[in-house]
């Protein structure tokens, strides 16, 4: 009897993860070379529609693994449910896309079954009757072929982009779909998922700001940043800083201007207590108007400033805020 290959397709919040097609392509190509059968499965609660979608592809069977406990996703439920299913089907080779979700549960699943995972593979080779899977090492400078020394089931995850999802073959006729209910006992699921959120990629896009108030070491203490913030607010601009400020953790790194931070070209750049080392200047010299406030009349920032204010920023900024507010109120 031919050995079954099982591709576990990923669905999330009502959508099939497109990388799953790539894994299915990998499964089809492996099945063709080995003569093994190819089956697919999708796990969740109410996943029949996904199973039907997959059944149009060239697979011998599709399983909808069902349990109310599989929705929403938790690593505990997926590991327990899939273990039950895989043990009952005696799959030889289990293929999954190397997604965040798979990375989350597959180590647990494999360990629970006393097996190992060859993860993040970019391809496979058939060497005689042995299958090996190719993994990148040293950030892709070297490729290692890795084979299984343990008993089946063998778990393999494929890297995003390793196979072509658009090359997945349709079947001659729809494959049979079977619903398998898995029993996940109470107490197995210890995770309590909260609402899914995306971390903001960048809280602030300084490159789009028209007015930037930037602070340097001259601000002396973290609490004084409030002063610059008030000025920025009065002007309707963004707050930014030179490296030492962000380095000290006084402002987040995405507000850093200069060679190791952002390059900006606002209409107005107000540099408060910034000396103007070349590392900072390369990040802001494209500003249309540069106003610099610094105690040291020889600070290099004055060489590129349109308006140079030599003086103590703590004396200059507070009245400036008042004036800006007045001007804005008057207009």
């Amino acid at each position, binding site marked *: 009897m031919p050995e079954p290959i099982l591709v576990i397709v990923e669905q999330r919040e009502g959508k099939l993860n497109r990388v799953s097609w790539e894994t299915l392509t990998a499964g089809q190509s492996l099945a063709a070379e080995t003569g093994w059968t190819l089956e697919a499965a999708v796990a969740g609660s109410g996943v029949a529609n996904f199973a039907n979608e997959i059944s149009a592809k060239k697979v011998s069977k599709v399983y909808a693994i069902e349990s109310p406990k599989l929705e929403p996703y938790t690593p505990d439920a997926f590991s327990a449910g899939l273990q039950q299913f895989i043990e009952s089907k005696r799959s030889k080779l289990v293929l999954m896309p190397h997604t965040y979700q798979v990375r989350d549960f597959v180590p647990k699943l494999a360990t629970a079954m006393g097996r190992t995972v060859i993860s993040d593979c970019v391809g496979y080779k058939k060497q005689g009757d042995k299958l090996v899977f190719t993994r990148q*090492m*040293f*950030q892709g*400078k*070297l490729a290692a072929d890795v084979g299984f020394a343990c008993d089946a089931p063998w778990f393999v995850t494929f890297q995003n982009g390793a196979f072509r999802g658009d090359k997945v073959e349709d079947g001659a006729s729809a494959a049979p779909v079977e619903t398998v209910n898995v029993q996940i006992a109470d107490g197995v699921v210890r995770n309590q998922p909260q609402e899914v959120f995306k971390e903001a990629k960048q809280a602030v896009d300084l490159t789009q700001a028209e007015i930037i108030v930037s602070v340097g070491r001259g601000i002396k203490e973290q609490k004084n940043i409030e002063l610059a913030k008030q000025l920025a607010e009065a002007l309707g601009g963004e707050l930014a800083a030179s*490296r030492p400020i962000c*380095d000290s953790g006084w402002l987040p*790194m995405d507000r850093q201007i200069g*060679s*190791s931070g952002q390059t900006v070209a606002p209409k107005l750049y107000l540099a408060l207590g910034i000396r103007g*080392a*070349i*590392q900072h200047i*390369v990040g802001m010299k494209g500003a249309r108007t540069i106003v610099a406030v610094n105690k040291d009349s020889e600070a290099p920032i004055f060489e590129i400033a349109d308006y140079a204010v030599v003086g103590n920023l703590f004396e200059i900024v507070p009245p400036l805020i008042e004036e800006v507010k007045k001007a804005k109120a008057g207009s």
Partner: protein
Amino acid sequence: MLIFREPLEGIDRPKMPADVVIVGGGPAGMACALRLSQLVDQHNSQNPDSQLSKENIYVLEKAREIGQHCLSGALLDPRSMRELLPGFEKEAPLDAAVSKESVYFLTEKGKLKFPITPPPLRDHGNYVISLNRFVKWLGSKVEETGITIFTGFAGSELLFDGDRVTGVRTDDKGVDKQNQPKSNFEPGYDLQAKVVILAEGTRGSLTKQLVAKFDLAKDRNPQTYGQGVKELWEVPSGRIAPGEVIYTLGWPLTTKEYGGAWIYGGKDNIVSLGFVTGLDYPDPRLDPQRVLQDFKQHPLAAKLLEGAKMIRYGAKSLPYGGWWAIPPVAGNGWMILGDSAGFLNSQRLKGIHLAIKSGMLAAETAFEALRKDDSSAAMLGQFQSKVESSWIKDELWKVRNFHQGFEHGFWAGLFHTGVQQFTGGRGLHNRYPGTAGYQRMRKLAELPANGGNEAHLLGPAKGDGKLTFDKLTDLYHSGTKHEEDQPAHLVIQDTNLCNTRCVIEFGSPCQNFCPANVYEMVDDAGQPSGKRISLNPSNCVHCKTCDIQDPYQIITWVPPEGGGGPNYDGM
């Protein structure tokens, strides 16, 4: 609060077997890889039945690209290259053959030309090169052989089994400022090697680990060092001929410091110019980057650079100590090459040819070790004997006491050099003792407050933006770049000492000797001294001076995340 880089505990690291791991892809490491490949090829063509593989020979290089951390004057003595690749001149990137040479003794405004060039500084037959370009080329030869160069990977630790070196751990990637793994964390690899070859350059961090573990500095003179600060200039045509070489002694240094300048004419109106300051000066306020700025104001240099443009900056340390300071260079599972060992002729200011030769000799030994599958101390010890019966020793033996002769100042140095010249390098004793340079640093209380004769060398350079530059401007031209969110790789054992003692006793010399503004004393009302040490690790140009020159010896330089560091294009 400063958090320092240390290998993470409790991490499951991928292991990979290797035959030979060469740490460092400079001239020594590349020559070693190339020679090893030649020997394996030769063996394989003669022994069809017992083939050796090159697949498991690896070079680790912390720079993102080959050669990007290589900096030197540089003049190449072609002796070893002719042995490694006969006829290499036809294809190697050489700027010019040395065409003219002169040596000057400088006073503040004047200069005195040596009537004849002293023999050690005669450079006819040598080539002006960019070491960066030369090593890039050597690296491409290595890659053609099928040996893998892992660029962007640093050796972070040696692996031991008892008294045997069993491999190298590469750097952990994706670790944040608090030394915690980030989402892109990738643990370092444990390369389990039969033979580990250390070619890290001066004061290698793994070499330091090895020397400490096996007490290899025992019975040796302490290694002494210099710091070379270099700028590359593009000058109006006709100022200096390609291949023209100028050395200077004297000003701006006084008789209490050791060092001198070089000016080499390259091709396309590019001039390499720099100053080597011995890291054994007495005044902690001295700043080697400033010394170079002072030198450029001398009419000899100022005239050359008028209307010219500075295009690149860099700094590196070099080992001066000579033969008596070289540790044992081979043992159980390991060998040490090039500047890591101290193979540098301080009288000729040349080490590239010795680095290459040491790499070749180590390759011969590594080849035998692979062939016989034996990398014991007895087997690899052949490298030690090969060095001692090679021209490396002939050359270094003659100058074995050279630098030590200068310990009591410039004039005493000239006297000893003269005597040594006539006694085959012996001078007044077969072995002159040496003192570690940091021990010669004096406390502020013992020095004139105004700096005395050294005043012009002390404190940061201001820079006029044309001929002279402040340190940050110079640093910008090193192109150095690191992942910012990583722990500090300048590991200070006890920052309390910086904040309470050093600031008072020595005035925090780290701020002065570091050519990259990594170290900074910031105001801190919470400290009794009012100052606290702060680090800018991403400024680092990997010169290792801090590890060498800190008077309390509490700084250890470890490699930052691989791929970071200077960009020494054309240096």
